[in-house]
């Protein structure tokens, strides 16, 4: 009896991740998050749900925050991705990372990379957000540990740091 599975066609992609261009042949169904984690070993981007709610997989794609569990690697072909691993320069943390550390904006740390990427994207759009704007901008990122209060403070602190305060 035949096996009803389509041929696993592979498609060549070139994706620049954290400034380095990677070439690979991937199945069309390969999710970007699995490309990052399994193909490139960039395991800082996490998976916490199946339905695009939790945001643990948030990365930048072409300058915008996206959920890498809901984007195919082939859709990112030719694009530029920044992951949590690409934020710090050596031991110099990004202001958002610094804000999360200073304000205790994380506990277990599983949601943290996605939370930091979303916060970063917010501050790119809006360097001085109100508390309400921060909470709204984090609707796509779930945290089960902090109750969000210190995450809000972390983003506020990051905004200060980015402004050189």
């Amino acid at each position, binding site marked *: 009896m035949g096996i009803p599975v*389509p041929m696993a*066609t592979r498609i060549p992609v070139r994706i620049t991740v954290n400034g380095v261009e990677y070439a690979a042949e991937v199945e*069309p169904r390969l999710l970007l998050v699995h490309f990052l984690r399994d193909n490139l070993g960039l395991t800082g981007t996490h998976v916490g749900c199946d*339905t695009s709610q939790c*945001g643990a997989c948030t990365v930048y794609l072409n300058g915008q925050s996206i959920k890498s569990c809901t984007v195919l690697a082939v859709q990112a072909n030719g694009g530029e991705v920044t992951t949590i691993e690409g934020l710090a320069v050596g031991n110099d943390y990004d202001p958002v990372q610094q804000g999360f550390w200073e304000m205790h904006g994380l506990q277990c740390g599983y949601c943290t990379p996605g939370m930091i990427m979303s916060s970063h994207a917010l501050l790119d759009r809006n360097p001085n957000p109100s508390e309400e704007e921060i909470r709204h*901008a984090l609707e*796509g990122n779930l945290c089960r540990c902090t109750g969000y209060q210190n995450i809000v403070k972390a983003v506020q602190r990051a905004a200060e740091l980015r402004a050189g305060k």
Partner: protein
Amino acid sequence: MFPSQFGYHKPGSVAEAVKLLQADPDAKIVAGGHSLIPAMKLRLAAPSALVDLSGIESLRGISVNGNVSIGAMTTYAQIRDSAKLKAALPVLADVAYNVGDPQVQSCGTLGGSLAHNDPAADFTAVLVALGASVKAVGPKGERTIPVEDLLVDLLTTSLAEDEVLTEIIIPGGTSAAAYEKFRHPASGYAVVGVAAAVKTGKGGVVDDAKIAITGCTSKATRAHAAEQAFIGKPLSAESIAAASAVAANGLDLNGDHYASADYRGHLVGVQTRRALERLA
């Protein structure tokens, strides 16, 4: 979690996309992918191939020239951040700001939302209220479809399998529009959404109005009775009350374990009142 196997095409033109769709009836268009890919991951959808429209530049963009024209592949983020739209029709940017979340807004597209026709989508109702229509291109060429006719039933549109939705056109002349959304606490989708748009004339008399309901019906649905309750009158406490009292009339309301049909019907009334109060 990830989808089963499929093929992938990224056409450079609408014509090429149409050809690909003609060649493979089980292929599906992927626009932003934020409804389709989750469904494929849950194995609720298994198209043979995806036709990715993201390589067709002509499908992106916003122009305001009396009418508002929005390319089908324009993302919610682009609508949300568009200064042109904020000036011409601010309701669109407001609604985009509250669709899903910022990451969804980065990917999700207006055309994709309409072609998917989720019963709890926001923009379906908003565009029905605004009297919008879409352009679609198929093997026989281009046609224009009013959004109200595009949305046929639950997750079903009048687009043919080999037709590509290319553009959304919102006619000018709307005096004011508002959208009232009651969000589901988990999904963020509308439990009930009420979109209202009016054209007012002399003395604030409403010359024309459209109200569309989403979230609680199989597709975005006009509330004709509510419209008739205040067309020809100024928006006043009385006319608004009259409209909201009949807003749920005739709607085939659905319910689930989060919110019953009765309750949704009640919300339709409250949110209609609130939407119209914002227009008054």
